[in-house]
């Protein structure tokens, strides 16, 4: 048996496995994005869900919070800012895995998309505490003077998301650097 006939089925099997995984990831990212959007709309649509889910999460006293339609709409729009960044990251992940699903393992787009995902996650880590601060202000805007709340808190989760973004960004940079150096190396040889 020649080397080519022994390795060709292995390579084909690897590509098939990768394509299955990539198709699953495409499905997960698409469903994940749609679900995140639906859940956010559901939370802000009902005053009771805002009261039970959002207000305790922000650590606000329920007495100083207003839950009328305009406040909830403003809250929804403010929450859409980090969600918009997350949706963009999920879109990039979808595009990345779609290339792999089509069998393009060494696509030059992959590191670019990885870096975009990394930047989005870093932005998300920064936007989450800022959005929570904005939500605190929006929900207590109708309260009496002295009862309005401006709270800024950076949680371990925000840091972890930003660190994950840095990790993905670094992997993207490493891929670009490796590809360009391999290219230079092959030219020298």
């Amino acid at each position, binding site marked *: 048996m020649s*080397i*080519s006939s022994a*390795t*060709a089925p*292995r*390579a084909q099997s*690897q*590509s098939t*496995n*990768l394509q299955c*995984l*990539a198709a699953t*990831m495409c499905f*997960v990212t698409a469903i*994940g994005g749609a679900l995140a959007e639906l859940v956010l709309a559901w939370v802000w649509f009902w005053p009771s869900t805002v009261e039970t889910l959002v207000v305790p999460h922000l650590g606000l006293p329920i007495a100083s919070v207003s839950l009328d339609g305009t406040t909830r709409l403003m809250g929804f729009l403010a929450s859409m800012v980090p969600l918009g960044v997350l949706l963009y990251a999920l879109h990039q*992940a979808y595009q990345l*895995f779609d290339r*792999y699903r089509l069998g393009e*393992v*060494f696509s030059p787009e992959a590191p670019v998309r*990885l870096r975009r995902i990394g930047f989005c996650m870093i932005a998300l880590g920064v936007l989450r505490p800022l959005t929570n601060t904005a939500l605190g202000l929006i929900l207590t805007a109708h309260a009496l003077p002295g009862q309005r709340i401006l709270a800024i808190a950076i949680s*371990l*989760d925000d*840091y*972890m*998301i930003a*660190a*994950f973004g*840095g*990790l*993905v*960004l*670094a*992997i993207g*940079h*490493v*891929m670009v*650097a*490796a590809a360009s*150096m391999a290219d230079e*190396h092959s030219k*020298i*040889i």
Partner: protein
Amino acid sequence: MSITQHGVAAYQAAATRRIGPMCHVIRAAAAIWFAWTAIRSISHWVTLGAVKNSWGRYLNVDLSGLPFSHHMVAFAITLANLTIAAFVLVFIWRLFGHYLRGSIFSIESVAQMRALGWTGVTAVAADLIARPLIKSVLTAHLASPPPFAVWAEPNDILHLVMALFIVALAHVFKTGVEIADDHRQFI
């Protein structure tokens, strides 16, 4: 030194120069994350009063009569959970160590990346199990302890997706390395 060896050494030196600072930043960020997690957890759990107050509020029960032994068991569960987080740091450190040595598209670095992803998944699973376990231990002395129930929070799902993303990326890299290897043998 032969021309090929010299070429490989130059390649690795160039790799370290270009991506070195970023690799060091990621290693430092991971170390800070773990230190922050460990200091926060341990400083919280060593103070019995703080545990009674915060967990009592979180579970909506009165934990003023919490026995010391139950407090210690719950602390041990937290430490076990923290150990898994330590492995996440170890695998990040090793992965970027490979990159610093210029071993980028190699089976070894891919294995570290896959281990990192699966450790992340394990850490999320451990979190999901640790929370109801701690709840059971902290409320075991009560006349009517709440039932055992596993619950997920939105952040758990986000962390799980992040860990699975690394697993998927490792699989892609592994396939890429093997295909490139096959092509080299074919040529």
